[in-house]
């Protein structure tokens, strides 16, 4: 059971957002690099493959760092 918790780092909920934030930064850096390399925008899967994470993790990280419910709130709050 212990080894299943291999992602266990800390019990603090604050950590959740920090690790998501790091992943999101890596995603954006990778997207930039791959765009240069491929001459087009990479797909979500290409980014996930390059970072060796699941596409699901890409999605989760990006969502976690983007909390507003509507773009109106983002732009005109």
């Amino acid at each position, binding site marked *: 059971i212990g080894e299943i918790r291999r992602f266990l780092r800390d019990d603090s909920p604050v950590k959740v957002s920090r690790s998501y934030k790091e992943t999101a930064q890596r*995603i954006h850096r990778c*997207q930039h690099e791959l765009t240069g390399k*491929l*001459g*087009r*925008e*990479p*797909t*979500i*899967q290409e*980014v*996930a493959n390059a970072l060796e994470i699941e*596409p*699901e993790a*890409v*999605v*989760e990280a*990006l*969502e976690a760092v*983007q*909390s507003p*419910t*509507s*773009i*109106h709130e983002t732009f*005109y709050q």
Partner: protein
Amino acid sequence: MRNVNQVKMQFASLPENVALARVVVATMMSNLEFTLTNLDDVKVAVSEAVSNAIMHGYHNKTDGLIDFAVTLDGEGLEIIVADQGQGIQDIAKAMEPSYSTSPDRMGLGFVFMQSFMDQIDVKSEVGQGTVVRLYKYVPQLQRAVQ
């Protein structure tokens, strides 16, 4: 890679379920050859459609039900957002830029949905509710020659 799938959901008209709808669509998009830009675009459109159902359909009452269906049909992504709320009197007018029935809103939701998606179709009946159908094609990527 699989590109056919369908997910149907029903959830309450709570503001936090906007994020839920976004995440479901985003996860399903990650199985197709969509880019991160496509992802952002579709997430904005979904947020606007679901926010509209909550805000305008149900006037922010939290006990309304929203039906949400996402279908991957092999060519793209179809999203259907349906509420059984107040309905829209004049759909053409509602879709005009800057038109809003709420004084504090910008009236740009439908504009965003139209610009970020390839198709939008709105059906509504006053007192019955509103169904918004959005569609986005998977982009034809130019494969760089190695």
